[in-house]
C-alpha cells in the first residue's frame, strides 16, 4: 500500500520543479534581452543623436516600406521556386544539354555578388535593348528571384535525390511513365523535404532585399535613406530600418519553425 502510494507525489514534485526551472529560465532569457536592448538604446541616446520628434514623424514612413519588402520577397521567392524547379530538373538530367544550361546558371549566379547582378539587370541590360528597361520593382524581383533560384536549385536537387530510389522503382514497375512518376511520386515527396529550406531562404531574402534600395525600389532601407539624409537624421533612420527587418524576420521565423515542426512530424 505504502509503495503504491509513493510514486504519485514524487512524480508531481519532479514535474513541479521542472516547471519552475523552465519558468525561471524563460524569465532570465527575457530579462537579458531587455537589458541588452536598453543598454543599446541608452548608449545611443547618450550620444545626443536621438530626436524623438523626428522619429515620431518619420517612423511610419519607413515602416510603410515593410509592405514593399514583403511584396518583393513573396514575388521573388515565387520566381525563385519556379527557376529552382526547372534548374534542379536540368541538374539531374542525364541529357547533356539541360544539364549544361542548368549548371551554367548555377555557376554564374553563385559566382557573382547579388548586388552586381542587380546592377547588371537594372543598369546594363537596358543598354543592350530598350525592351529591357524595367520598372525598379520588376528589376528587383527578377534580380532577387534569379539569384535565389540558383541557390534553391541545389536545395531542390538535393530534395529530389533524397526521395528513395525504391519509390521510383515501384512506380516504374507499375508501368508509370517518367514524367508522371516525377509529377506524382517524386515531386510531392521532394517538396515536403525542401519546404523548411525554402522558409529559411525567404527569411534571408527579407534581409537581402535591402539591396534593391540601390535601384530605387521604395522598400524599408530606401525610405530610411530618403528620410534620414536630407534632415541629417541618418542614425535614427537606419536604426529604425534595422528594427523593421529584425521584427519581420522574427515574425517569419516563428511561422517557419512551426512549419518545420509540422513537416518533421511526417505523414499524417
Amino acid at each position, binding site marked *: 500500500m505504502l509503495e503504491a502510494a509513493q510514486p504519485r507525489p514524487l512524480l508531481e514534485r519532479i514535474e513541479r520543479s521542472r516547471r519552475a526551472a523552465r519558468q525561471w529560465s524563460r524569465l532570465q532569457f527575457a530579462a537579458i534581452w531587455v537589458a541588452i536592448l536598453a543598454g543599446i538604446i541608452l548608449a545611443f541616446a547618450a550620444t545626443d543623436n536621438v530626436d524623438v520628434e523626428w522619429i515620431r514623424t518619420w517612423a511610419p514612413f519607413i515602416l510603410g516600406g515593410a509592405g514593399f519588402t514583403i511584396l518583393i520577397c513573396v514575388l521573388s521567392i515565387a520566381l525563385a521556386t519556379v527557376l529552382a524547379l526547372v534548374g534542379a530538373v536540368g541538374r539531374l538530367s542525364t541529357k547533356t544539354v539541360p544539364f549544361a544550361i542548368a549548371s551554367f546558371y548555377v555557376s554564374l549566379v553563385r559566382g557573382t555578388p547579388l548586388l552586381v547582378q542587380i546592377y547588371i539587370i537594372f543598369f546594363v541590360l537596358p543598354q543592350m535593348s530598350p525592351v529591357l528597361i524595367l520598372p525598379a520593382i520588376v528589376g528587383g524581383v527578377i534580380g532577387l528571384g534569379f539569384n535565389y533560384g540558383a541557390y534553391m536549385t541545389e536545395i531542390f536537387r538535393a530534395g529530389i535525390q533524397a526521395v528513395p530510389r525504391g519509390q521510383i522503382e515501384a512506380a516504374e514497375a507499375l508501368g508509370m*511513365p517518367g514524367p508522371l512518376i516525377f509529377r506524382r511520386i517524386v515531386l510531392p515527396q521532394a517538396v515536403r523535404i525542401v519546404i523548411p529550406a525554402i522558409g529559411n531562404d525567404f527569411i534571408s531574402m527579407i534581409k537581402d532585399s535591402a539591396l534593391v534600395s540601390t535601384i530605387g525600389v521604395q522598400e524599408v532601407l530606401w525610405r530610411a535613406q530618403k528620410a534620414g539624409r536630407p534632415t541629417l537624421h541618418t542614425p535614427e533612420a537606419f536604426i529604425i530600418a534595422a528594427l523593421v527587418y529584425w521584427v519581420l524576420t522574427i515574425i517569419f521565423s516563428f511561422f517557419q519553425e512551426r512549419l518545420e515542426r509540422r513537416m518533421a512530424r511526417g505523414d499524417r
Partner: protein
Amino acid sequence: MTSGYPEGVPIPEHIGDVIVRAKGIEKYFGKHHVLKGVDLDVYQREAVMLIGPSGSGKTTLLRCLNFLEEPTVGSVEIAGVQVEADPIHARTRRHEEQIRQIRLQAGMLFQDFNLFPHMSVLQNLIEAPTRVRGISHAAAVETAERYLGKVGLIEKRDEYPARLSGGQKQRVAIARALCMEPKVLMFDEPTSALDPELVGEVLAVMEELAHEGTTMIVVTHEMHFAQQAADRVIFMEDGLVVEAGPPEEILEKPRVDRTRRFLRRFLKPE
C-alpha cells in the same frame, strides 16, 4: 542447365502456355559477372520459386525481367511483348515504351514494400490504374476495394502507409500490384524485411494467390513456403541455374551436390 521441367517430369495439369520467356540473360555490374547466361520459361498459372545463396544472382535475374536492371545481354518476353537488351545505345522512345509494356504485364513486389508514403492506401491502389490504364475513378476504387478485401485490409482503406505494420504494408503492396491486373506477379524476397511474427500473414496471402493459379515468380529464402506453394523450384548459384524441378525433387532429393549443400545449411535449423 535448363530451367524448364526436366525430362521425364510430368508437367502439372493446371499449367498453361509459356507466359514469361527470358533467353540468355547476362548481367555485369562493372566487371562483376553476376548473371552468366540464364534461360527461364514460366508457364501460366505456375508458381516458380528462385532459391540460392545470397549473391547467386536470383534478385538480379528477377529485376532483369522487367528491366529495373537492364540486362547486358539477352531478351525478355512477357505475354507477347518482347524486349532485347541493348545497353550500348541510348534508349529510344520505342524501346522505352516496350519496357513499359512489359512492366504493365508484370507486377512487382519489393523487399521494402515501397508504398507511396504521401498517399493513402486507397490512393496507392488507384494511382496507376487511373493514370496509366485510364480506368475510371469509380471502377478503380471498386477494384481496389475488392483486392484490399482479398488481402484482409479493407478497414485500412483510408490509412496512410506510415500507420501500417510491415506485414500490412506488404499486403497493401500486393493489392496495389493486383489492381493493375498483371499477367504475372514477381516477388523479390517479400518477407525479408519483416519481423518474424509478421512473415506468416504475407506468406498466407501469397499461398492463396498461388493456389488460385496466379502466375508468380518468387525470390525467397522461405524453404518451407517454397515446399508448400511452388510448382517449380529453381536453385541458382554463381549467376547460373544449377537445378530446377518440382519442390519435392529439388528440396527433398536434389541431384546436384551444390544444391544439397545449400539446403543442408538452410534446412538444418528446422
